């Protein structure tokens, strides 16, 4: 394999790929109401029918009529709009925010879109009045009681205005059957179905026929373009026509067809739901048989295979998800979460790395864009050649691949109720969410529980320090807790109180998804839905989980440690004094500095501090495990925030760890608070390993920042591989790396025009640094850098 890897790494990026890449980077972005028009028309035409039928017809309409194009030089084709990177208006989810913000889209600080005047007019004249009260957003808003809404500052509910996404479809079966094969199944099922399930199969037939039609339109278009094409382009169009024609009628046969088929599936799912994080999963595994066969039979060269993967990598950057201004500020740079996980293990436990795993890594070396979100699965027997190649790609500074540890993830999934076989076959969804391909709806971004805000309320008798509102239970203030144990007891009660409220909200939201976000296209590629005739939003999948993120371990550990040591044990600061300081945002800098520097902090290999973090994850899980979600499954915990540590910190008052009011919480999920890990990367990893990954089946996130100096010579690369081996042995689920000079980050803030393409890892996703909000930029600069000057 070593020789093979050397050979692959020498394959240059072709001129075709370079051009396609440049075009995509420079693509202007427009708001698009095209699909909204088609959806609205379908809803009008089918007004007497059920939501399920309306949704199916609306998708069918788009499949048949949405504008399509084939770009010059493309070898993998397809998009959900004619132009790429469009901001798609999707009324079934929600448009309220857009009513307020449509005029700011062009000028807002992040993720701008141009708006054509005629589209703006259509939006206000037709769309807004028609959809009033019908969107998911409107229905959720009406259904949620106000006492739950008020408490979202602790138990934040997500997925209120768009479909859930966040799922890994059964791409393997999709490629093997094709839409035509699945359609035949659905038709057969429809014949035999009882009344209750007939509608489900009808919707399946509507959308799968539509899928065949959609793909066929690309074949037709290619043939059309072929007519007037110059001689040197004819071959391109002929190939596209033949690939798409085949895929519209039968399963994929060649490697290129398999890759194209995978991409069409992603486009179709996006067309149905306009959501983030439809993840292709273990593409190096399910594409491998096609690759092997073509290579062995001489129909495909290594260079051609590489170019096909490079081409599809570019495609992943042509679909973006338009967020509201607040969302864009903190999830800037379009993290849409097309996650591909390479490497890992096979079902029998043996290593799964194959030639394609390396071609995927090399595609990242070539393309170096934000998407796909490339992940590498590693385990204790991962080959050195794989780790080395992974390290070489990491050293390029695109933040990818991020690493997932089989030794931690598989047990965590088994712990959450997945079978051993499925847990071995895990893939990653979106940013860092763990899932099993093809048979699970993890609903992984259901909500976020702000443990730090909960601590603020515990210290202040349940009263919000920012607004003065009574949100929590009246259990006394810090001054009333005579011992640290009394404080902990109160914290637990408040935590459970807010969790109870939040869980009720989660039930309501999932019920609304079942009613308004019926997803037949997605259900056709999730195991058991088709068999049982139940939509994926209604619990049709084999596994039905809901993910709640617990935020943020580091701040809780640091705050609890400071309270324990400085207030209760050494009495350096009195309870009364500290409470006043917290309420008034540390007017006395001396007290803040004592809280910050006189007690040890999480991330420095100090057991008792780390365990104060772990303790509250366990405590939360104990209660969470007693609930059953709306679809009859269990809840899972995620220890990640993506980039929500910034907004989640905005409304948290000053905390006992010396953090000022409104400052970001710790980044990532399991990272130490930026800059507080002072004992080097090995100590940090040992601290992180004390937060037991088996409790976090929804995924964890650890950011580490390294200086590019670390990778300057062979020596450094080998040492870095050793660090990865240690990470594996410590059974930590996830880690990702920024490899960037602090000086570059500072310069890029000053002269953004010179750093347009500087990529950074934010938190589970990669973005252009200059597109980020300033708070987030500063937080990334403040993270501890390793491996620089001795």
């Amino acid at each position, binding site marked *: 394999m070593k020789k093979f890897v050397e050979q692959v790494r020498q394959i240059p990026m072709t001129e075709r790929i370079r051009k396609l890449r440049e075009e995509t980077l420079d693509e202007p972005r427009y708001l698009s109401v095209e699909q909204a028009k088609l959806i609205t028309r379908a809803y009008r035409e089918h007004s007497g029918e059920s939501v399920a039928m309306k949704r199916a017809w609306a998708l069918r309409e788009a499949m048949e009529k949405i504008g399509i194009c084939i770009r010059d030089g493309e070898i993998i084709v397809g998009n959900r709009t004619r132009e790429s990177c469009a901001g798609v208006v999707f009324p079934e989810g929600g448009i309220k925010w857009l009513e307020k913000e449509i005029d700011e889209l062009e000028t807002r600080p992040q993720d701008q879109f141009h708006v054509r005047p005629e589209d703006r007019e259509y939006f206000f004249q037709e769309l807004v009045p028609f959809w009033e009260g019908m969107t998911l957003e409107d229905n959720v808003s009406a259904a949620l009681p106000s006492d739950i809404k008020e408490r979202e500052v602790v138990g934040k509910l997500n997925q209120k205005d768009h479909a859930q996404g966040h799922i890994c479809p059964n791409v393997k079966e999709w490629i093997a059957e094709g839409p035509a094969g699945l359609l035949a199944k659905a038709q057969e099922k429809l014949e035999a179905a009882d009344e209750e399930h007939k509608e489900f199969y009808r919707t399946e037939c509507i959308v799968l026929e539509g899928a065949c039609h959609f793909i066929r339109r690309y074949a037709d278009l290619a043939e059309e373009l072929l007519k007037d094409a110059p001689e040197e382009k004819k071959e391109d169009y002929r190939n596209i026509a033949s690939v798409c024609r085949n895929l519209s009628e039968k399963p994929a046969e060649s490697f290129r067809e398999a890759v194209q088929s995978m991409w069409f599936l992603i486009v179709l799912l996006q067309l149905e739901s306009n959501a983030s994080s439809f993840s292709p999963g273990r593409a190096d595994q399910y594409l491998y048989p096609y690759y092997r066969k073509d290579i062995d039979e001489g129909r495909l060269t290594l260079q051609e295979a590489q170019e096909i993967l490079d081409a599809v990598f570019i495609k992943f950057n042509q679909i973006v998800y338009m967020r509201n201004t607040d969302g864009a500020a903190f999830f800037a740079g379009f993290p849409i979460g097309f996650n591909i996980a390479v490497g890992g293990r096979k079902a029998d436990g043996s290593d799964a790395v194959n030639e394609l795993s390396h071609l995927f890594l090399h595609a990242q070396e070539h393309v170096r864009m934000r998407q796909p979100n490339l992940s590498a699965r590693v385990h204790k027997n991962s080959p050195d050649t794989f780790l080395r190649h992974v390290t070489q790609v990491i050293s390029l500074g695109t933040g990818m691949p991020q690493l997932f540890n089989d030794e931690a993830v598989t047990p965590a999934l088994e712990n959450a109720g997945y079978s051993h076989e499925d847990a071995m076959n895990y893939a990653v969804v979106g940013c860092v969410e763990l899932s099993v391909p093809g048979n699970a709806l993890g609903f992984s971004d259901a909500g976020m529980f702000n443990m730090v805000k909960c601590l603020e309320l515990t210290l202040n008798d349940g009263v919000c320090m920012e607004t003065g509102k009574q949100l929590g239970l009246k259990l006394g203030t810090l001054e009333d807790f005579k011992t640290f144990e009394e404080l902990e007891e109160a914290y637990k009660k408040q935590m459970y109180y807010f969790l109870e409220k939040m869980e009720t909200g989660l039930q309501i939201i999932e019920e609304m998804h079942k009613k308004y976000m019926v997803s037949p296209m997605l259900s056709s590629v999730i195991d058991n839905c088709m068999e049982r005739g139940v939509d994926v939003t209604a619990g049709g999948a084999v596994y039905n989980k809901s993910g709640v993120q617990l935020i943020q371990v580091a701040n809780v550990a640091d705050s609890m440690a400071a309270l324990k040591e400085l207030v209760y044990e050494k009495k350096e600061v009195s309870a009364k004094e500290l409470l006043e300081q917290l309420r008034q945002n540390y007017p006395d800098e001396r007290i803040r*500095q004592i809280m910050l520097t006189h007690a040890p902090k999480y991330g420095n290999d100090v057991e008792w501090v780390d365990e104060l973090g772990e303790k509250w994850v366990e405590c939360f899980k104990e209660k969470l495990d007693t609930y059953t979600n709306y679809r009859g499954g269990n809840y899972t915990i995620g220890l990640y925030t993506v980039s929500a540590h910034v907004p989640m910190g905005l409304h948290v008052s000053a905390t006992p760890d010396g953090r000022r009011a409104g400052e970001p919480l710790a980044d990532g999920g399991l990272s130490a608070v930026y800059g507080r890990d002072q004992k*080097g990367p090995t100590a940090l990893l040992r601290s992180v390993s004390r937060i037991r990954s088996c409790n976090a089946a929804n995924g964890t996130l650890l950011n580490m920042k390294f200086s590019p100096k670390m990778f300057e010579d062979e020596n450094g690369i080998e040492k870095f591989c050793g660090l990865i081996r*240690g990470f594996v*042995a*410590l059974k930590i689920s996830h880690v990702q790396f920024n490899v960037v000079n602090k000086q570059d980050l500072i310069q890029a803030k000053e002269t953004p025009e010179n750093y347009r393409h500087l990529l950074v890892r934010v938190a589970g996703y990669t973005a252009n640094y200059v597109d980020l909000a300033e708070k987030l930029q500063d937080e990334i600069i403040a993270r501890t850098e390793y491996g620089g000057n001795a």
Partner: protein
Amino acid sequence: MKGEIFDIKHFAVHDGPGIRTTIFLKGCPLHCVWCHNPEGMKRGRDLWVKREACIHCGTCVHTCPKQALSFRDGEVSVDRSLCDFCNLCVEKCPSRAMRRIDRMADTKELTELLKREQLFSDVTGGGVTISGGEPLYQPEFLLELLKSMKEAGIDTCIETSMFAPQRVLEEIAPYLDRFLVDIKILDEETHKKYTGVSNRQILSNFRYLAGLGKPILVRVPLIPGITATEENLRGIRSFVDSVDPKLQIELLNFNSFAGTKYRFLDKTYFDEELRAFPKEEFERLCSYVEVR
């Protein structure tokens, strides 16, 4: 057994093979004018004032029973002749700007610390590197420390100027897996001028160590105008050749960060203007010491 240290650095990637932890022993018999670790120069107690962490609250000034502290031009100023290291300012300083740099560490404690690192060091061929100051300056402690590390199965390396009686080296050598040795200046008079001591013992010790047959890497710190001359570097190469022509010599580029540490100790660096050699220059200097 306890010894005096001033720092421990984990994930040291420039102090020998693999992922290592470097332990810095306090005190050194040499006084190199360019020393990068001024806090390691002398044995005994040292007070650091990390002024960029200071919040100018005056706590330390009010706390000091000897009136050794005051504010001068808006910065804390220490009258080091009055300070008796009572530690009150260190304990009371809210922002940890006042620090004690010296600390007594136990061989057992240090070995336990290294055992934790084995997960990383073992897979990369790393281990512990004892540096300084000059580790040979605390020979009994060094010996006990190395024995304890070897018992725990940890790869041991020393970073040394080799300035000590040969019998010290004879005692510790069995417990060392590898050596990083400094030869700074070949000419005896120049060596005396810039380091305060003759290099005779150093050169003779080098012959002894090279004869042991254990991995040994010669390192030369590049100090512009002092060690970084063609004559000196070529001279060191031919001296090493006279002992063993296969031995590698590694040059350490000048590190301009040391100045800050001098300020923490209210000392001045001998030349604040010096900068690291740019890449081409550095490579040219390296060519003088390549194995031929």
